[in-house]
C-alpha cells in the first residue's frame, strides 16, 4: 500500500466507525447532524475541494462535482424533510471505498505484472586486471568478457567462452525446462544462470541486448489503444453529461407536470423528485467502465507475457481474438529450419567439391540453406576467395569462387540463367550448382518438422481458426508434403518475399469485415509480410530485430503452438471486456430506470456505482490467469 492509500484507508475506517456507532445511539438532532457531518467531511473533504477546483476551472461534469452535488443534496433533503443523513454519508463513504479499492487493485496488478517482467539485470561482473568487479550493464562494451555466477541474470547477449551450465529462460520464453548451454553457444540476456559459472564474450551493448528490447516492448505495450477502449472513453465523455441533464430534468419537470395536470396517483413533491435525481447523479460516474476495460487489456497482455507471448498493444488483443485465417511461413516456423544435406545427384565433380563450391558461393548468406551447406562441408571456409557475390532474392546466389564463376540456387535461378538443369524427384530443397556456365549437378537439402507443429495446427483449429495456410519459397512438393503431414488447409509454394505480401493481401481482401488474417514468421525476410498482415506474429524474439520491429505480436520462443495460445488468451480477454461493458452499462441503465420510477433508493445507486466497479475490476483481473488455456 502506498502512503496515500494508507491515509485514505484510515479516513474510511474512521468515517465507517462513526457511521455504525450513530446507528446505535439516539442524539439530539443538532448533535446528530454534526456527528454525521464530521464523518462526511473526514471521508469526503478532498472530493469537495476537488469539486470546487473543478468548478473554478470550468469543468462542471467531473465525478467529484457530481459526488459533491449528490451528497450535499442528500444532506439538504435530510435537513428539510427526514432528518436522515446516513444515505449522504454512505454515498460518500462507499464512493471512497470504491476509489480506494480501484487504486489498490490496479496497483497490485501493476506490480504483479512488472514482477513477471523482472528481468532487468542490475549489474554485470567484468574482469579487470584479474579481479572481478561489478559494473552497470550500460558500461560494458562489445567483446568484453563478463562472468555470470549461478543464480545471476545474464546481463548482456553474448557467446559462452568458458564453462557450461543450465539456463532458466522462463521469464523470457515461459518455458520451464532449463536449457543446457556450452562453450560456443549463444546466450541471451535476461535468462538466469542456474548451475555453474559462465564466462561470456558480449556481442551486443546493453541497449541492443534482448533484455532491453523486451522491456522496451513490454513497457510501451498497450499505448496503442483498442477500439473497445476508444469506445469506452468516448462513452464516458457523453454518458456523464447526459445523465446529469436527465437528473436536472427529472428534478424539475415531473413535479411541475404532475401538479399542472393534478394527477393524484403520482407523487408531486419536489423533495421526492430531487431525491430521484440525486440517485441519477450517484449512478452517473463512469468509473466502472473507464477502469475495468483498460485493466482487462492490461491483465491480458500481462498474462500473455508471462506465457512468453508479447503483445504490442491492446488493439492486437482485439484483432487476435477476431483472427480467422492464420498463414505460416514454413521454414523455421513450422519446420526446424535446420537443414541437412541429404543427397548429391548428377554430380560430375566429387560430392565434396560440389558442396564446397555451393557453400563458398553462399558463404555471405545467413539463410539456413547456406548454413547447412557450410555444415555439410565441415571445414572452415576462406571467405577471401569469394568475390562478386550477387544475391537473387528467393532464387539463389552467384559469385566468383577461386576464379570460377559459380551460381547456386533453385530451378528459377537456372531458368533465369538459362542453364539446362536436371529436375529432382526428391522432396526437399534443391540447390543446383553451375560452374563456369556448366551444369554440375544438384544438392538435396531437407528440413524436419518441429515436434510441436502438428499439435500447433490442431489447437488453432480448436481455438476457432477456420483456415490455416502455408506460404513458402520452397517448391511445390515440399510445401504439399508439409501441409499434408500437418493438416494445414492450403499452401502456396515458390513464393518470393513480395509474393507472400500479395498472397496475404488477397486473403485480407477475401475476408468478411471484422475477421482478421494473421501471418506467422520466424523473421528471416518476413518483415514486409509481418507488417502487411492484420496481425504479424514474429517467432523467436532472440532472432531478427527487424522482425520484432515489424511484428505486432512476438513469441519469445520458436514454438508454433504459442500462436494458438495467443489466440486463446485474446479470446478470453475480449470475453471479459465484453462482459464488463455489458454488465456495467446494463446495471447502470437498469438502476437509472428504477431510480426514475422511484423503485430504487440511494443504496441501490451506491451498488450501481461502487459495487459494479468492484465486480468489474475483479472480473478484469481474471484476464491475468491464462496458464491453463
Amino acid at each position: 500500500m502506498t502512503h496515500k492509500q494508507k491515509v485514505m484507508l484510515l479516513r474510511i475506517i474512521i468515517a465507517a466507525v462513526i457511521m455504525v456507532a450513530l446507528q446505535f445511539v439516539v442524539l439530539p438532532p443538532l448533535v446528530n447532524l454534526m456527528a454525521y457531518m464530521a464523518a462526511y467531511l473526514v471521508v469526503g473533504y478532498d472530493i469537495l475541494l476537488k469539486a470546487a477546483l473543478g468548478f473554478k476551472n470550468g469543468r462542471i461534469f467531473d465525478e467529484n462535482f457530481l459526488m459533491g452535488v449528490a451528497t450535499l443534496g442528500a444532506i439538504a433533503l435530510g435537513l428539510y424533510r427526514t432528518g436522515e443523513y446516513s444515505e449522504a454519508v454512505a454515498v460518500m463513504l462507499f464512493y471512497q471505498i470504491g476509489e480506494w479499492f480501484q487504486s489498490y487493485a490496479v496497483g497490485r496488478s501493476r506490480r504483479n505484472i512488472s514482477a513477471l517482467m523482472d528481468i532487468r539485470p542490475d549489474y554485470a561482473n567484468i574482469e579487470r586486471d584479474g579481479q572481478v568487479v561489478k559494473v552497470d550493464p550500460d558500461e560494458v562494451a562489445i567483446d568484453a568478457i563478463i562472468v555470470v555466477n549461478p543464480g545471476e541474470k545474464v546481463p548482456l547477449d553474448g557467446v559462452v567462452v568458458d564453462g557450461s551450465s543450465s539456463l532458466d529462460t522462463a521469464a523470457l520464453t515461459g518455458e520451464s525446462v532449463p536449457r543446457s548451454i556450452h562453450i560456443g553457444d549463444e546466450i541471451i540476456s535476461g535468462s538466469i544462470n542456474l548451475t555453474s559459472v559462465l564466462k561470456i564474450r558480449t556481442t551486443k551493448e546493453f541497449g541492443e541486448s534482448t533484455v532491453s528490447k523486451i522491456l522496451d516492448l513490454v513497457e510501451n505495450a498497450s499505448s496503442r489503444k483498442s477500439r473497445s477502449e476508444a469506445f469506452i472513453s468516448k462513452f464516458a465523455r457523453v454518458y456523464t453529461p447526459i445523465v446529469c441533464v436527465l437528473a436536472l430534468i427529472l428534478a424539475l419537470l415531473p413535479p411541475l407536470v404532475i401538479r399542472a395536470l393534478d394527477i393524484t396517483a403520482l407523487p408531486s413533491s419536489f423533495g421526492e423528485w430531487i431525491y430521484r435525481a440525486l440517485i441519477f447523479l450517484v449512478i452517473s460516474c463512469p468509473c466502472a467502465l473507464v477502469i475495468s476495460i483498460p485493466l482487462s487489456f492490461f491483465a491480458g497482455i500481462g498474462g500473455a507475457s508471462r506465457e512468453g507471448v508479447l503483445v504490442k498493444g491492446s488493439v492486437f488483443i482485439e484483432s487476435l481474438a477476431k483472427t480467422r485465417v492464420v498463414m505460416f511461413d514454413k521454414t523455421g516456423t513450422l519446420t526446424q529450419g535446420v537443414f541437412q544435406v541429404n543427397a548429391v545427384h548428377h554430380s560430375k565433380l566429387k560430392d565434396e567439391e560440389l558442396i564446397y563450391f555451393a557453400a563458398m558461393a553462399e558463404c555471405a548468406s545467413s539463410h539456413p540453406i547456406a548454413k547447412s551447406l557450410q555444415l555439410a562441408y565441415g571445414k572452415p571456409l576462406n571467405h577471401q576467395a569469394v568475390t562478386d557475390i550477387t544475391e537473387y532474392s528467393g532464387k539463389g546466389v552467384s559469385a566468383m569462387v577461386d576464379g570460377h564463376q559459380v551460381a547456386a540456387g533453385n530451378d528459377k535461378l537456372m531458368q533465369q540463367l538459362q542453364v539446362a538443369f536436371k529436375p529432382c524427384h526428391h522432396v526437399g530443397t534443391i540447390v543446383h550448382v553451375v560452374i563456369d556456365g556448366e551444369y554440375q549437378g544438384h544438392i538435396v537439402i531437407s528440413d524436419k518438422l518441429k515436434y510441436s507443429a502438428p499439435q500447433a495446427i490442431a489447437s488453432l483449429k480448436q481455438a476457432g481458426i477456420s483456415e490455416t495456410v502455408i506460404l513458402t519459397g520452397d517448391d511445390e512438393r515440399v510445401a504439399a508434403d508439409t501441409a499434408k503431414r500437418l493438416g494445414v488447409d492450403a499452401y502456396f509454394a515458390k513464393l518470393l518475399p513480395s509474393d507472400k505480401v500479395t498472397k496475404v493481401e488477397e486473403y485480407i481482401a477475401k475476408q468478411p469485415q471484422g475477421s482478421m488474417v494473421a501471418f506467422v514468421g520466424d523473421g528471416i525476410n518476413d518483415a514486409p509480410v509481418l507488417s502487411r498482415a492484420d496481425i504479424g506474429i514474429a517467432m523467436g524474439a532472440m532472432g531478427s530485430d527487424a522482425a520484432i520491429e515489424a511484428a505486432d505480436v512476438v513469441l519469445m520462443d520458436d514454438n508454433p503452438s504459442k500462436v494458438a495460445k495467443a489466440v486463446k488468451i485474446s479470446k478470453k480477454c475480449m470475453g471479459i471486456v465484453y462482459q464488463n461493458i455489458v454488465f456495467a452499462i446494463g446495471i447502470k441503465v437498469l438502476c437509472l430506470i428504477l431510480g426514475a420510477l422511484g423503485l430504487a433508493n440511494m443504496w441501490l445507486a451506491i451498488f450501481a456505482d461502487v459495487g459494479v466497479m468492484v465486480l468489474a475490476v475483479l472480473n478484469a483481473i481474471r484476464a491475468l490467469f491464462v496458464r491453463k488455456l
Partner: protein
Amino acid sequence: MKKTYAIEVDCANCANLMEQEAKKVAGVKDCVVNFMTLKMKVEFAEGADPQAVMNEVRTVCRKVEPDCEIFLK
C-alpha cells in the same frame, strides 16, 4: 521527437482527461497516456522545446486533476 514521462494519477478517467488536455497544448503533436503503466508518451511538434511544452502540459493537467504529477526528467 517522442518522449516518455512517468506520471502519477489515481483514476483511469482522470488519465483520459489528462490525455485530452495535453493534446490541446501547442507544441504537442500527439499524446498517449497509459494509466496502467503510468506513462505519458508525448510526440512533440517540429521545433518545440520539450521542457517548456511539458511545463504547460503539467499546468493544464493540474486543472483537470489537481493531484496529478508528471515527472520531467
